[in-house]
């Protein structure tokens, strides 16, 4: 029984390794949420009649999902290295009630993060992985900042060349998760 289990594990690993080695390049396109920039800057307009609410700009923010393009190259059967590119934006509207002054700006954020992706032994049609990335974000009006992204668990399913992918994600760009499509070549 033990031998059978070990054999099965080796076979599964071999399948994954074969997939990675046959097509070492991997390109993934994700949409993710929730936008961390939105979460950190979101303020609820405060219509109190105190001085803070009168003199401080009252802000409302709209945003879209975080778009991610992710490239990896398999350096080992179980490990890839690559780069994440993220884009997200905020539409910021603010009004200062004391002088009825309106302001609007759009903050675009571009992030570049080198990453390491580790595959967890699994089958050829359902593959599990984890990722960690660190890099830098550039945002209009906000400047450059440190960026990181951790995927404790993600999965790829369906084909070996074209596949669906979903992952849990936590970091300076997204707190929640991403879903997308991938292509191996």
């Amino acid at each position, binding site marked *: 029984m033990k031998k059978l289990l070990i054999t099965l594990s080796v076979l599964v690993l071999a399948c994954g390794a074969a997939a990675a080695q046959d097509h070492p390049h991997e390109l993934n396109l994700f949409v993710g949420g929730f936008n961390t920039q939105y979460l950190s800057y979101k303020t609820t307009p405060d219509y*109190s*009649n*105190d*001085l*803070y609410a*009168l*003199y*401080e700009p009252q802000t409302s923010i709209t945003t879209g999902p975080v778009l991610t393009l992710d490239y990896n190259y398999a350096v080992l059967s179980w490990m890839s290295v690559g780069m994440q590119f993220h884009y997200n934006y905020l539409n910021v509207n603010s009004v200062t*009630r*004391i*002088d*009825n002054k309106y302001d609007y700006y759009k903050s675009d954020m571009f992030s570049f993060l080198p990453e390491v992706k580790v595959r967890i032994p699994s089958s050829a049609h359902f593959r599990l992985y984890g990722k960690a990335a660190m890099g830098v974000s550039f945002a209009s009006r906000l400047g450059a900042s440190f960026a990181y992204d951790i995927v404790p668990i993600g999965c790829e399913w369906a084909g070996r060349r074209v596949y669906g992918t979903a992952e849990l994600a936590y970091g300076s760009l997204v707190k929640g998760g991403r879903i997308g499509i991938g292509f191996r070549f």
Partner: protein
Amino acid sequence: MKKIIYLFAAAVLALSSCTRGYDIVGGHESYVYTPGGKYMMHIADDLMAGALEDLEIALELGKTEVTWASRLSGMKIVQAEENVWHLSFEGPFTFDDMSYDTVFAMSATRVNEEDHADWDVTITGNRTEREGYRCTFESLGAITYKALYTETGWDMLYGRLSMIVYDKGGKKDGCMLTFDGAPSKALFVRGL
């Protein structure tokens, strides 16, 4: 030629004083029911007129401290002269459900002998609010509260109330509310 210049200068001066009708220099004036004007109206109305209402009740009851009103509970009343009372208060005071520490000293002079009298009021005080915001306020000379038609509250106000707003960085704004009759016609100026 000199006379023409003098006349022209006098006309310019007269016109410039007519545009506002008073001598405040600088700032941006607006209708009283803008957010800043409303804030100052709260001081003139809720706080000062409220204190006057409690003063009239205290005189009727023969009390020297307000114990019946939730807003100005603890306000001390001292008779300084025959028709002059000094009022002082320190504690939380509520404007539109926002309650903040407020301190003021007010002097009220009864102008007539009516039960619901006209009053000349002077005040200095301050209010500490959230996020480092605070304000000081004071009357510039006496503010007159005239009761013409109502048995509660006052219909006409005359005089000036000034306010300086501070945030964590220091002075943020200087404001003035000028009354010349009906409170709704008061003029609010900020940016002083």
